């Protein structure tokens, strides 16, 4: 064990109370060069307490200051609280960023899905490009195909056929049915009932027939 190591162990064993330089010299003899080397490395700190010099290991020096220097303790506490605040803020920011990242990811997914659906719709049948005359053709064909013995057909049945062919939404379908039956009053007849249909006089008209 070198002189430096012996000195270091001695100082370390003194803890936060520190080892008196005079006592070290008495015990170990000449220590100045070894002590200087340790101080220059930052492993040991020398502090004057009263009229004597004390040596502290780096791991105990802060505790020693906290025990003896109230100003240092206050400063240390303040720094600690700032550190604590920073740490909690960092955690919150990290959490927020994580949530945001999740949302952005979902949004991106949704946008990309919609894009795909819109493209699919656009390729199947361009949305709301169905003119009333084209719609009439499809509607008449569906009506003829689903016609019952009494002539009345559920609009929901026709909707299934026409929407599948023309790529129309339900709302758009019923809007066009309202327009068509209004325009050709003498050709179509609506009747109340059914689960869905055109609203007339506050009643759902879910059946249609050709006159």
């Amino acid at each position: 064990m070198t002189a430096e190591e012996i000195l270091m162990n001695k100082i370390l064993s003194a803890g936060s109370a520190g080892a008196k330089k005079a006592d070290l010299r008495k015990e170990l003899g000449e220590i100045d060069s070894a002590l200087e080397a340790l101080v220059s490395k930052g492993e040991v700190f020398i502090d004057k307490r009263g009229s004597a010099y004390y040596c502290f290991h780096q791991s105990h020096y802060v505790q020693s200051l906290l025990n003896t220097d109230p100003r240092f303790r206050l400063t240390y506490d303040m720094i600690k609280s700032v550190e604590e605040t920073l740490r909690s803020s960092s955690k919150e920011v990290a959490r927020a960023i994580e949530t945001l990242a999740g949302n952005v990811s979902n949004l991106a997914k949704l946008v990309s899905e919609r894009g795909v659906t819109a493209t699919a719709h656009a390729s199947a049948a361009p949305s709301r490009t169905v003119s009333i005359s084209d719609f009439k053709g499809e509607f008449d064909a569906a009506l003829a195909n689903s016609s019952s013995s009494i002539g009345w057909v559920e609009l929901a049945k026709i909707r299934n056929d026409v929407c599948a062919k023309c790529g129309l939404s339900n709302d758009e379908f019923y809007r066009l049915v309202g327009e068509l039956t209004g325009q050709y009053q003498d050709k179509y007849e609506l009747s109340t009932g059914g689960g869905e249909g055109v609203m007339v006089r506050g009643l759902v008209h879910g059946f249609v027939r050709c006159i």
Partner: protein
Amino acid sequence: MYPYRLEKNPYPSSPTPTLMDAQILGGRRHKEAKAAVLSCFSDLHSKVSGGTATDKDFRLLTVIQDVGSGKTHLALHIKGLKEVANNTVASYVDLSVVSPRNMNSLYGAMLGGFTDEYIAIIRRAVVAYVCEKAERDSTARKVFNYGFMDSISGRSLKDKAELVLHNGMVPNYSALTQVLKKEFSPIEVTILKLVVEGNFRADAQNVSTLEDIIASLAALASLNLRFLKRITVFQLDEFESDRETTEFVKAVINAHIPAAALMLIFTPSSYNEIRQANASVFDRLEKANYKVDLAGSNTYEEILDIIMEYIRHHDAGKCFTPEEEKDLAAKVKVIYDEFSDFRNVRSMLNIMYHTVENSGKRECATIDEQALDDTIKNVYPGLRIRGSVMDVPISDFIKIRRNCNDITTLEAGVRDAVRNLVNYAHEVGAVAKPQKANGSGFDVMFSDPYGTKVAVAIVINQDHAKSFEQISNTLKTTGFVDKLVILTNANTSAGTNGSAVVTMDRCKMIDLIYFSNKYKNSELVEDDSQRALMLAKSIRIC
């Protein structure tokens, strides 16, 4: 005094028809439906006129149409017809008032559906039959307690029969049973006794099973044929998909009651529900002998004819002139076209009832626009002309629309109105003073607040192809102005950066003319100012 010199309001005031209201039946389709039903009854009657009927002599009729289209009216009308009454005995049942629905309540309702007049007739017929028997049969004489004292006091069997009919004496029911059981089945005897007793409808309490009910209905039909030489018609209105009713109807259909017809009245919605709820009944309905079709019962022609029929029926002096009819038809047409809510018989009759009342109170000779306006405002306060920016009252709307039937008048009116609207916009500071547009081919020229020179041209034609040509020519002259607005009735999207082609519907044109009339007569109020500017914006002139 009511309009058209009528002594009373010809239109029914109740939301559903009564037997009295149903005496009048108008409309080509309703009359065709009536003819189909009468043909069915007549055909069946001819088959059983010999007095015998088999299970082949049963008919099933269905009347399927939307609510408020006149199904009940048709059924009641047919029931009340004299020509039908001569050949049939009809029981009308409104199933909506039968609750709870079970076989007994349904049978009770069917017995209740026969008129008191019928009960009196069959009672008289049965008593006459027993009386005739009594001439030869001593047991039958006991029915009337006819004895020696009666013969010496000069009282005949007929007198005693009359006493029974007028509840002057109680017949001997035991003797009656003895007489009847020789020729009739026990069920028939029970019914006949109840008929004589004057308690015919009490038979509903004598039945305990569906089989009994079917047997009783068959017995009733048989007795009607035997005593009155008439077929029996059961009219079941508001037929629905509930289990009790469908099973009951199924049993009646399966029974093939001889000399009887079952008339089922319901909506397409109920028909669909029955299809889903009871395939077996649906199959029977599909195979109905007559499917009475009221298709087109809510078309303008049909509703108009029904409206006219009420007036014709009550016009005892035949004073309702063709001119008055034409005038009324034009007014009805406007109501029909502009208010989809009234495109059914029931709603339109309600309007007509109130309109006639209103006209009567104001002592008008005809139904005028004011009466229609007041009626719609009072009876349907929430209704407005669809899409009217100027909130045109219905009376003015009707007047303007009628005046503008001629396309030349309409064009002149709109041209004048647009000039007035630009003048008004200038007066309120929305645009600069209009300039003279003489010889430029435009109708109005002015500058907007930014100094843009705007020209307005009006292109209204009956023939839209002509309008397209005119628009095309006008668009070539845009060099004179910064912005050109073409107002047209043709449906086109033509136009470039410097020009706009605005398609005006009939409502917009009427809005313009209404504004113009108010402007010319200095009748514009504060509210109208905002509306007028909105109208100007809607046709892009400010």
